[in-house]
């Protein structure tokens, strides 16, 4: 009958309480059990509509004191984009010197979000 009714179960990770949240979505509106705090509700809504994650990985770096450069997306990107982003990043190679925060790739997996260096790597 209720065509647009969905229920979700998720573990809230916003604070150490780690509540198990049950959310019911009816026609795009969310309902929560009693006792779930505002932050938990916001988290659950975001997790259900569009879960986002920071991507942290490495790229090869030439001519540096190290062979790998740790990198991160400057903002969280949609979880569904992680695999595509990893494929794109696999082909990137940079050259030292690189400064912390330097943009390595301006648009990760068409999200419009850049990939930046998490570390300064000096040239040899």
């Amino acid at each position, binding site marked *: 009958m209720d065509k647009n009714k969905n229920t979700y179960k998720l*573990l809230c990770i916003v604070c150490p309480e780690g509540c198990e949240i049950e959310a019911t979505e009816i026609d795009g509106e969310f309902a929560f059990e009693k006792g779930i705090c505002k932050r938990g509700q916001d988290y659950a809504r975001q997790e259900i509509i569009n879960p986002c994650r920071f991507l942290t990985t490495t790229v090869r770096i030439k001519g540096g004191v190290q062979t*790998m450069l740790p990198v991160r997306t400057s903002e969280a990107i949609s979880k569904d984009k992680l695999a595509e982003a990893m494929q794109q990043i696999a082909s990137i190679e940079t050259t030292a010197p690189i400064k912390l925060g330097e943009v390595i790739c301006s648009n990760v997996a068409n999200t419009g979000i850049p990939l930046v260096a*998490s570390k300064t790597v000096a040239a040899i």
Partner: protein
Amino acid sequence: MKKTNCDVAVIGAGPAGLAAAISAYENGARDVILIERDKYLGGILQQCIHNGFGIHVLGEDKTGPEYAEHFIQQVEKLPINCLTETMVLDLSENLTIQASSKQGILHIQPKAVVLAMGCRERTRGAIALPGKRPAGIMTAGTAQRFINCEGYLPGKKILILGSGDIGMIMARRLHLEGAQVQAVVEIMDCIGGLSRNLVQCLQDFDIPLYLRHIITDIRGDKRVEGVDFAPLGDEGQPQLDKKISLDCDTLLLSVGLIPENELSKKAGIQLDKITGGPIVDKNFHTSVPGIFAAGNVAQVFDLVDHVSICGMQAGKSAAEYARGELEHFSESLSKVKAGPGVGTVLPQVLSGPADGPLKFYLRARQVTRKALLQLRNSQNEVVFKKKFRTVRPAEMISVTADNLDCSANEYTFELIGEDNG
């Protein structure tokens, strides 16, 4: 034999050592030497490329290398003498340091020492794993270094034993790099790490988690070919009829960390059997006057923020001791113990006058809902209490208690769940 004199020597340049060196200098020590066996400063943070560091101390969610660089830059701006590729081999009770460096053996005589050697991972020997001894078995941290620092994958089909944070983080890392992570196998009823990592490292990628299972065999001659594991029965015995066999070429161990205390033992420092680190007071002073201990060498921390805070306090205290402004605690002072429900407590000794609030770091023994933490004195009176909705062994508890009488009292922390209290 020529000795280099200095005010404060810090051993280890991870987040604890970096913070201690900065704070020793900022609190008046002029000759500060920071000794690190690795080529670079930063400690284990260099290989922890994921985010989740510094939310409390820097107010930002940083990756390990970013967090480390924040402190490395401060160290480099100050006239702190950084000796990298220098390994401390010996430390004596009168604070003499012997270290091996490219220039040969160094002898250093500081007025105060901060131990910040961090921790190391438990290995196969420490947990008595059955089965053969083929190649392809390593700790999760070793795999982390291989991938993140050296740039190669340790295997293609992975099984992870233990659900500590490093294990779960490596499950995600290996999955993203194209390896197949077969399963994470955990002997306990609950995961060993943070729930954030359960959600974002395992559930996000549908990596199977087997709680209350143990490894019963490791197959393969030259290289690991597979692992058998079985659920535990009620009496803790493996139920072999329910055995699961999975193929894999690599087995990662994430079965806990132990404070690195070979040097502490050489210096005759009294260790706490439970934390595995030195017994310290609120200034992180150990039982040997002039030697301080901060970070994972004292107790394994889950958040780097706490490590930096302890490092700063230890560095400040070391600077004060070097100037003769800080006394060592005497044996007659108050002790703090871990009572029922509490795994570890830091600091274990209360020293000096009760000058204001005292910060304690504790670990719960088990997951407890609606928990009540109480501190009792020798007269069995409750002198401090705090309620928690949930406490977990994986997440350290930090509390601040006020107005404690530090003279010859014995305090005990206890954690009571709603059911039995």
